[in-house]
């Protein structure tokens, strides 16, 4: 005779960093890790928006598999043994972060997001003390044409959170990406001045999901731009509960 288990039918167990955790079918590795207080670095992922999978910081190892898996978009699977913080992963993450820093002009000292910036915090968290890939020092515009907000391409990491929140939550799809590769840029409409946009509703969602000082409220001085992001989980829940 077997005793019926109390575990819900669709849940299973797996290991993350040697800890036994239980996961439900359909959950990603990242979700399971978060539920169990295991922190996995990430920059493009935000709860409440679609998965992007572009920053590659959340790559994890799965024992027995050669390739690495993005925790944000890999389904948890039964008996999988996940490693989130090996020496190799730490090394890769630091280099990826350095690549991000080298791409644009991130000058934390004079940034309105200093102290509230996910990129800055990530550098400290991952123990990145300097950038050993050469800086590009590209020339980028700052769009201050909107009365309330500013888009500073110099501080953009192309995580596309703004693009996703604008299309998926606000439904305006004002923000997009133009070009490709290293030439990619966040744009408004047909790459117009933000202030001229007739599709932008000035809802400020893009500003508040932006992890860095690329999208900010005007009139903030250095280190003043704290982001408020509670609306995202709120809207997600409210929408689920509204017929």
């Amino acid at each position, binding site marked *: 005779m077997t005793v019926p288990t109390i575990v819900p039918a669709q849940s299973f167990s797996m290991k993350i960093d040697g800890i036994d955790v239980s996961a439900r079918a359909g959950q990603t590795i990242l979700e399971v890790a978060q539920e169990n207080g295991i922190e996995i670095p990430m920059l493009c992922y935000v709860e409440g928006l679609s*998965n*992007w*999978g*572009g*920053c*590659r910081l959340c*790559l994890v190892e799965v024992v027995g598999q050669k*390739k*690495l898996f*993005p925790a944000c*978009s*890999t*389904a948890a699977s039964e008996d999988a043994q996940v490693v989130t913080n090996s020496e190799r992963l730490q090394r*890769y993450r630091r*280099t*990826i972060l350095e*690549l*991000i820093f*080298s*791409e644009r002009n991130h000058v934390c000292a004079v940034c309105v997001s200093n102290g509230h910036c996910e990129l800055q915090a990530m550098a400290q968290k991952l123990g990145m003390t300097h950038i*050993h*890939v*050469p800086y*590009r020092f590209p020339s980028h515009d700052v769009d201050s044409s909107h009365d309330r907000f500013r888009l500073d391409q110099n501080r953009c*990491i*192309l995580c596309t959170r703004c693009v996703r929140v604008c299309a998926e939550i606000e439904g305006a799809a004002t923000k997009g*990406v133009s*070009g*490709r*590769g*290293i*030439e*990619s840029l966040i744009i408004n409409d047909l790459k117009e001045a933000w202030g001229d946009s007739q599709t932008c509703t000035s809802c400020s969602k893009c500003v508040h999901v932006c992890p860095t000082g690329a999208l900010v409220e005007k009139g903030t001085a250095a280190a003043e731009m704290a982001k408020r992001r509670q609306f995202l989980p709120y809207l997600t829940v409210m929408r689920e509960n509204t017929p």
Partner: protein
Amino acid sequence: MTPEELRHKAAEERTAQKRYKHCLNVCMAAGCMSSGADQVKEALTSVVRRYGMEEEVPVRAVGCMGLCSAGPLVSVEPKGVLYQEVKAEDASDIVTSVNDVPVKRIHCPTDTPFFTRQKKIVLENCGKVDPERLEDYIAADGYEALLKVLTEMKPAEVVQQVTISGLRGRGGAGFPTGLKWGTVSKAGTGQKYVICNADEGDPGAFMDRAVLESDPHRVLEGMAVAGYAVGADRGYIYIRAEYPLAIKRLRLAIRQATRAGLLGNQIFGTTFNFNIELRLGAGAFVCGEETALIASIEGRRGLPRPRPPFPANYGLFGRPTLINNVETLANIPTIIRNGGAWFASIGTEKSKGTKVFALAGRVQNTGLIEVPMGVTLREIIFDIGGGIPEGKKFKAVQTGGPSGGCIPEQHLDMPVDYESLMQVGSIMGSGGMIVMDETSNMVDVARFFMEFCMTESCGKCVPCRVGTYQMHELLDRIHRGQGTPTDLELLKELCDVVKNTSLCGLGQTSPNPVLSTLRYFEHEYQELIAAANQAHAATPAGEVTR
């Protein structure tokens, strides 16, 4: 068209072809076209007319004959006399000598290894049929395979034959085709799609273009067979906009086949429907990646997404989708006609059948070739390719395009198959084969491919977007003679990071040309760096004072 009508048509066409004593075939594929093949054809036609020989010597436009470097090419059939570098002025001599000895000054011998060492399956009709005539294809057993599967085989049996054949994807990675078909066929019911990937983006590869220009119906037939096998009734051909001639011929072929009832609804009176549409690419190499290709057909930016889910389960418009490359699909009609076992008898243990290569670069005979898997690189380059011109020394052969690598002299006797190429740091790829001699600098070659990957990176993931840029900068610096040992170390480190952390195949394989040139030709990097250090050796003199 009914089965009887197809057979009747084939017989009728064969009889008609036998009526002629000779036939002048002019290659009208892009290569020969750009050296003036259309003027040659016009001249031949008018000479034939002038001599009143239209009834005995028809002039036909056919597809690629392979030896592109010697074009325009004209062949006299069925004698099998080949003429090279033909000009309009040669028309009269060619026509008057059809019953006589060939015209010596333009005669191209066909008993050379270039012709005798090849084995043609995919290219069996290339240079023989008129790509703009459906009847020509039908006379060459065209659409027999489709008829066979629709009237004699269950879908599962078709998948089984493809599995038995051992055919592997010819687009690059070599995934077993039968397995892919099986997955899509089992992926539930309802709407499914077949996509033919004709976005041949590797610089230095033109196999698919040649097949599409020379024998478009073969690909349509392969797609229809695939559609039947996996349960799809719609197909898309995703083709580069840079191939106008191939697009024109495909459009014509789709129209012809649809009008003849070989595509469309209730094919051969069965319940099977299959329609094909063209979708033009717009210049993005990354769209060769399956999920990016799907995004592009859906009208979006060609960005790859993480897999799983795989397209076989969640593909075009969210439906199960089979994606095969042109050459893979072009193998299908022959496999069905002759059976999977026949195909599996050709090639090596793990790599069955033949492979088409576009042979180019510093080699005597450049053009399109098809060889059984397992021949050696040396045979391809020195026998079929005729060796290196101008008495220069062979240095390396590049296979696999920007995802592949450079193979040096020491590995030339290795058999060409998926695994062996991988072992020496390259890949089979889609079939571009670029030969390099001593005049090529390998750092320059690596830089060339990295520039390609950098400009083709979609920009979605950080390692590929920024990593390819940084690697290109480093390669450029080393190549310009300004590199340092630290630069080389950083280059190696970035290769490791980009390879292991990029989102899709483009990024993951972009370091390959660097890794393979480092593996075999690191001394060329070191020499450039040593020279740079010598130039910079001057130590600073003087004091530091406030």
